[in-house]
């Protein structure tokens, strides 16, 4: 037990060290990073505008959301996306492709922890830009954001499971690069799936029933769409139990597969370019 605790402690401190280093690096290119962070907000702004137009065309509401409701939904999406985005699907394959991955294998800290620590630095810094933008959008579009204390508490409980489930799923996709090296095609399909089924493109309420059913069976909606709905008052806090159960089940399942897949992948890895 002590060993497990020590290992977890080391993973935490090692990941934090990577996070710290990542943040130091990102501060070197403030303008570039600010532009990148701003551009990442565009997708939510565009989706918001589209769905507000659809609502207006449908007499004011669509799927139970009016213009202010959509504004609230996508403003919260902006922030929660940064918190649950892991970046592993980009960072790890990039290192495999460019030959920089070997160095991570040589360190006494799991490469996924190193990768996640570095990519989480992006999220933390993005929030510095995204939160003020979200505040401006909230005022400009009269966004409806009215979470109950229970909803806030439920969101806080769900988020760690959401991050774990996303990190597990992202890692599974990322390690395909051990065999395929270049995985931009797979990553594109995965990004589209998470965008659509995670509620980033549209709230679940406006999706066709069959698609909503698929979304509820997968972890992506529960990792992002559901916490957004909690905070805009569209989901009940009691459903957080279902969210935690689904996310935990997916995380356990994925981690069980990830372990042998990782071993097989690193065995197949040819350390090219090193």
């Amino acid at each position: 037990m002590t060993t497990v605790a020590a290992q977890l402690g080391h993973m935490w401190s090692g990941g934090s060290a990577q996070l710290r280093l990542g943040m130091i690096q990102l501060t070197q290119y403030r303008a570039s990073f600010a532009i990148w962070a701003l551009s990442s907000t565009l997708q939510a702004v565009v989706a918001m505008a589209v769905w507000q137009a659809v609502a207006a065309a449908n007499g004011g509401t669509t799927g139970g959301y009016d213009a202010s409701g959509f504004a609230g939904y996508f403003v919260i999406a902006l922030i929660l996306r940064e918190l649950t985005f892991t970046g592993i699907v980009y960072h790890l394959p990039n290192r495999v492709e460019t030959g920089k991955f070997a160095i991570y294998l040589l360190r006494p800290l799991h490469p996924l922890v190193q990768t996640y620590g570095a990519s989480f630095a992006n999220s933390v810094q993005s929030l510095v830009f995204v939160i003020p933008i979200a505040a401006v959008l909230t005022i400009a579009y009269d966004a409806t954001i009215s979470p109950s204390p229970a909803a806030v508490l439920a969101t806080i409980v769900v988020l760690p499971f959401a991050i774990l489930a996303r990190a597990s799923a992202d890692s599974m996709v990322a390690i395909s690069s051990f065999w395929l090296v270049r995985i931009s095609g797979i990553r594109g399909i995965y990004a589209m799936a998470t965008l659509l089924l995670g509620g980033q493109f549209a709230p679940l309420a406006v999706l066709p029933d069959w698609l909503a059913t698929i979304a509820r069976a997968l972890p992506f909606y529960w990792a992002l769409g559901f916490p957004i709905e909690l905070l805009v008052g569209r989901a009940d806090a009691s459903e957080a139990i279902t969210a935690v159960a689904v996310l935990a089940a997916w995380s356990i399942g994925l981690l069980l597969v990830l372990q042998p897949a990782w071993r097989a992948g690193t065995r197949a890895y040819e350390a090219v370019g090193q």
Partner: protein
Amino acid sequence: MAAAPDIAISADHASRTFHVPVREPGLAASLRSVVRRRTREVRAVEDVSFEIARGEVVGFLGPNGAGKTTTLKLLSGLLHPSGGTVRVLGTDPARRDHDLLRRISLVMGQRQQLAWDIPPADSFDMLRVVYQVERPAFREQLDELVALLGLEPVLDKPVRQLSLGERMKCELAAALIHRPEVLFLDEPTLGLDVQAQRRVREFISTYAARTGATVLLTSHYMADIEALAERVLVIHHGRLQFDGALKELAARTSDRKLVTVKFALDSDAGRDPARARELAATCGDVQDVDGAEVVVEVPRAEVRARMAALLDLPGVLDFTVEDEPIERVMERVFEAPASEDAATEVVGAEA
């Protein structure tokens, strides 16, 4: 083969095979390869066995593509052997056991322990956490590395603004923050100027002497190997060709000696290089003529007899007998074709 406790590194019939895509150049071949992919099997390392005792500094020699780097990757756990076994400090490195990773280090050229955009000091601190080095020990080790490598002026400069030599020294420091017991160095002086090469060599020598670390070092510069390693492993076409002392390598692989004959300046040969060449040629193959000095190559077995003949030449003032320079010895070894059973490449395979 169970490694003895004082053995730090061992390879027992270790092999590593890669499957490399094969394709003709051009668009048509490219399109064909989409439908029908062909690969060939490349045996990068084949049946390699050796043992290195704790505290030994061993040079690893071979031409490009001989299998040196692949062997280092096998020993550091980056690659799994296709056959045979390797052990480092009694452990299978491919398991990447964290306890082992804390005790070894691999330096590959100017590779990338250091974050590019920020000063090396920040990367060193991150490595301290990752390798779980206590702060006092880290401080002590870093101070020592900074002093030995002369890093003080570069510690707070972004890595991208450092010269190649400065970067290499920082990479070395990064690789040694955790004071590894086993150090794999792949071309640590590649691309450095002569002064920087010397400084890195001196540093490696000092580090090994101070810590008792086991070092396996590849280098294209024979000066590195001569300065650091008494024992060398020579790999060629994926197979180990020689394991022993550097001097023994010269004796075993070269059947020649070089004799430098110096003629008196007031003799005919001393005044006329053509005459000097003509006289010296009676004792061996002339390799070089420089004024009154001529270098001739003589068969090792005939040195004594040739010396007697040489002393009879008119105007001879002095002579020295030496082994061939190690670079020439290596060239000779590497020019040799692969033996029949040591084919390294191309076993036509399709996938």
